[in-house]
């Protein structure tokens, strides 16, 4: 059959199907087509519930879309140059400033610029990390305080939990069972660069950053009884500080000296 004929017959059936799905009578189908359309009608009626959109969804998706657009001062920076009016002007200014600074040898700072301009990653104060099982198992997510910008940070079938922001908001320490038992890990605020910090067959949990971001305290039963431990932020120099009576104790660093 030629391509054109093929498409023609496909369109005819598609039209019949569309009429059927709208509850109209098919025009004059052959017996075989009629049977097929009857199956289609049954399938469509059984799937009808999935075509309905629950109340509130339209508004929620819209709000979330708008919030993402607002934070989308991200990658398509150069695309926005071709946008209209003030935005384009402002972008040109920023671009010019970037070029000037680069020429003046301010390269390290310029490289930081894109990060500084991204509101979502500005710092821990503007984002909330939390644990959810919405994908079937516990994973760490981050969200803006206004409910926008939901991002999944971990992607692992094992348990991930106990998220803790570093004081500069750049990293998140967390607990994961991805290597078989509870260990402390650290990742960048966007979920990249996951590194394992503890390596012990016992359980390590509840990481908490020191105010200067150089150390992490956590709970562990590595010496046979639950206790409070501290290590450098790179996982080195683990020390036991105190015996902790309960496995669900909460930790807090003092910010005052």
């Amino acid at each position: 059959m030629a391509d054109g004929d093929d498409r023609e017959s496909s369109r005819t059936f598609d039209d019949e199907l569309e009429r059927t799905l709208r509850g109209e009578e098919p025009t004059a189908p052959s017996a075989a087509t009629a049977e097929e359309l009857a199956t289609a009608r049954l399938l469509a009626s059984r799937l009808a519930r999935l075509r309905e959109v629950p109340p509130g969804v339209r508004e929620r998706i819209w709000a979330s879309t708008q919030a993402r657009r607002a934070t989308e001062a991200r990658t398509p920076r150069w695309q926005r140059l071709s946008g209209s009016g003030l935005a384009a002007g402002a972008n040109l200014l920023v671009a010019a400033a970037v070029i000037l600074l680069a020429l003046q040898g301010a390269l390290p700072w310029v490289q930081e610029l894109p990060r500084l301009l991204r509101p979502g990653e500005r710092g821990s104060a503007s984002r909330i990390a939390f644990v959810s099982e919405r994908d079937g198992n516990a994973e760490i997510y981050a969200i803006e305080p206004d409910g926008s910008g939901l991002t999944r940070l971990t992607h692992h079938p094992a348990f991930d939990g106990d998220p803790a922001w570093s004081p500069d908001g750049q990293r998140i320490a967390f607990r994961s069972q991805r290597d078989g038992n509870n260990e402390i890990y650290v990742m960048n605020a966007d979920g990249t660069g996951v590194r394992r910090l503890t390596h012990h067959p016992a359980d390590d949990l509840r990481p908490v950053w020191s105010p200067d971001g150089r150390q992490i305290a956590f709970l562990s039963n590595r010496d046979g009884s639950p206790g409070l431990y501290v290590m450098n932020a790179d996982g080195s120099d683990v020390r036991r500080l105190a015996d902790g009576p309960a496995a669900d104790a909460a930790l807090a660093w003092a910010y005052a000296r």
Partner: protein
Amino acid sequence: MPGEGASLAGLGMRTRSIRGCTSAGSVARDEAFAVLYERQFGRVYAYLRYRLGDELLAEDMSAEVFARAWGKLRNLDDPDRATAWLFATARNLLADHYRGRPGCLPLSTLPTGRHPATDSPEAQLLAEESLSFVSHCLTSLSEREREIVGLRFVAGLRNREIALALGLSEGNVAKIIHRALAKVRARLREEYPDG
């Protein structure tokens, strides 16, 4: 659902650019975007919910699809191409989501489609029975067939839109739909031999 044509003002939508830009071009762009959203959000959401089996995740991913569409708006004038682009984007996000996870379509977790606030218990039960019946029928389909059934019967895309979104020929899409319907019919015959 698509084509409901509810008024944009009814949503209290901000048709002004978020950045406070008020030039004629940006207002027109906002309006074009609101129209696109109004036409398409229901089918995109329904399709993602069908594929993900998770209402919250489907909302989140739908918002991501439309946020990306905003940057592409100039290329989405033609409704067919807009539909194809939105669903191709949705499928890319799904592929990212399911990367590394076997058993792509979560049929066991097809959303119940319940609206507890509005439905009687009987209506909820009927709805669940419908969906478990569908789950049963769909297990006999290949992944591609289930995908296209979702696009045609849940999202309500026409064959030519599916063909554009998937990069197939229309004839090919039609053949896959025929095959899927035949399999569903065979499954029905097994269940109800008396017709």
